[in-house]
């Protein structure tokens, strides 16, 4: 039995809670907007627009907070990785998830102080937090001011282009969220990771 480690400081937990709730609201309202129809509506269109806008703004603020906090606290270290050997480490972890886990092997990169994330977690968090979040937030902000967008970008309507970026990033983040929640059930017990994210202790 390993000693409990305090891995998730309060600010991470609060940020994460806000982030997850906003993402859920955005995904639900976003889907409702994308598939709005006359006969049946999940959420009334203008209501969905307002909720989507407000949660988007909160998410943005939260994201900026996350950037700064990660920059100026030690939590940022968990997001740095060395390219050398990255691929083989990721493959090793992937192999574990696809086979090893069923043979009750030990995880190749067990959690310890200084290594909160396994290589797969690390790479997906970095991609999500430093590539797709900026994409979706910047395109979202741009769609907030549609009249300022250029008429054409690469030959298609400016709004249309930005909207495609927005929708594709939204799609990727939704997939991430599903996979992310599933992977969080792979812990000592299916719920232990969620408990860690609530009380901070692993």
């Amino acid at each position, binding site marked *: 039995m390993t000693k409990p480690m305090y891995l998730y400081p309060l600010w991470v937990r609060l940020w994460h809670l806000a982030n997850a709730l906003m993402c859920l609201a955005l995904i639900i309202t976003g889907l409702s907007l994308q*598939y*709005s*129809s*006359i006969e049946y509506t999940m959420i009334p*269109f203008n209501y969905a627009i307002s909720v989507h806008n407000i949660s988007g703004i909160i998410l943005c603020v939260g994201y900026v907070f996350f950037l700064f906090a990660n920059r100026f606290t030690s939590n940022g270290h968990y997001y740095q990785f060395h390219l050398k050997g990255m691929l083989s480490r990721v493959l090793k972890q992937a192999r574990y*998830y696809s086979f090893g886990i069923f043979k009750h092997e030990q995880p190749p990169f067990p959690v310890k102080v200084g290594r909160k994330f396994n290589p797969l977690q690390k790479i997906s968090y970095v991609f999500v937090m430093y590539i797709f979040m900026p994409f979706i937030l910047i395109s979202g902000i741009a769609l907030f001011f549609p009249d300022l967008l250029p008429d054409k970008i690469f030959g298609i*309507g400016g709004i249309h282009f930005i909207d495609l970026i927005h929708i594709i990033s939204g799609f990727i983040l939704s*997939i991430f969220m*599903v996979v992310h929640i599933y992977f969080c059930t792979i812990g000592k017990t299916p719920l232990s990771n969620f408990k860690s994210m609530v009380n901070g202790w692993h």
Partner: protein
Amino acid sequence: MKKLLIINLLCALSFIAFAQETSKEEVVHSKENSNCFSCHGSPTYTYYNDVVERDITKRMNPYFLIDSVLYYDQNHKSFECIDCHAYEFKTFPHDNTLRMEPMPSCLDCHEGDDATAMYNFEVINDEFHESVHSTKHSDEFTCWMCHNPHSYKINASNNSNIRETIIYDNNICLSCHADINKYQLISGNTKPNVIDKHDWLPNQISHFASVRCIECHTHVSDEALVAHHIQTKDKAVKKCVECHSSNATLMTSLYRFQAQENRRKYGFFNAAILEDSYMIGANRNLYLNILSAIIFGSVFFVILIHTLLRILLK
């Protein structure tokens, strides 16, 4: 106020755009009209005053100014001024009684006219007479109020640039609803501010640049391409999903001309709208939709298998 400014700017820009693309076709009656344009085409005019026996220069009433570039680029470009106006306007000072002269109406020339039968003037005429404008102000409100006799050029049925058509058509309405001087030709009321009245509509500027007023304010019929039956405000479209959905019935009027061919296929908008604007809820890319369903399906499937294995092999 700022929005109004921007809309006015849009109008101005569009006028420049239209002015620039004057057709190079020969101008039929430029000689005959040049006399009228010598005064009605410039901010000042000069005439010989018999009483004081010298040339006098005066300012032209700006409302009587006619832009010759627009004039020779419109539907009736082949007309002499005196085809519609009295021959006696050739003399100056114009006879005072001339201003009382009744003007011809569209139907005077176009009723039963085979060359323009495809526009369905008779249907439009009936629709117009049921509209708020006509029922509330039957005599003063004529077709000319919206169709400027010296510049109206058809857009809706032959301009492939939807944005231009939208701006053109909306400027027709805004010529009164954003200009108190013209509005009060018809009504003594102080004009309600259209911008304020549409505050419930978010992104107003981009809405007004991408849908026409008549999309929300008319009762659309199948016979005329441009619906003229403008209804009272309580009948106007307020529900977002009437446009923001793939089964939007409304927008078919705007995109009817462009969309006829391509729309059949998927039941929603074709490349014309997909290119020019993006409408939440209405533009769905069939392939992206299928692709996303497949990816989501696979992810859930893999997760399901993984969970089962985890439980079974515990």
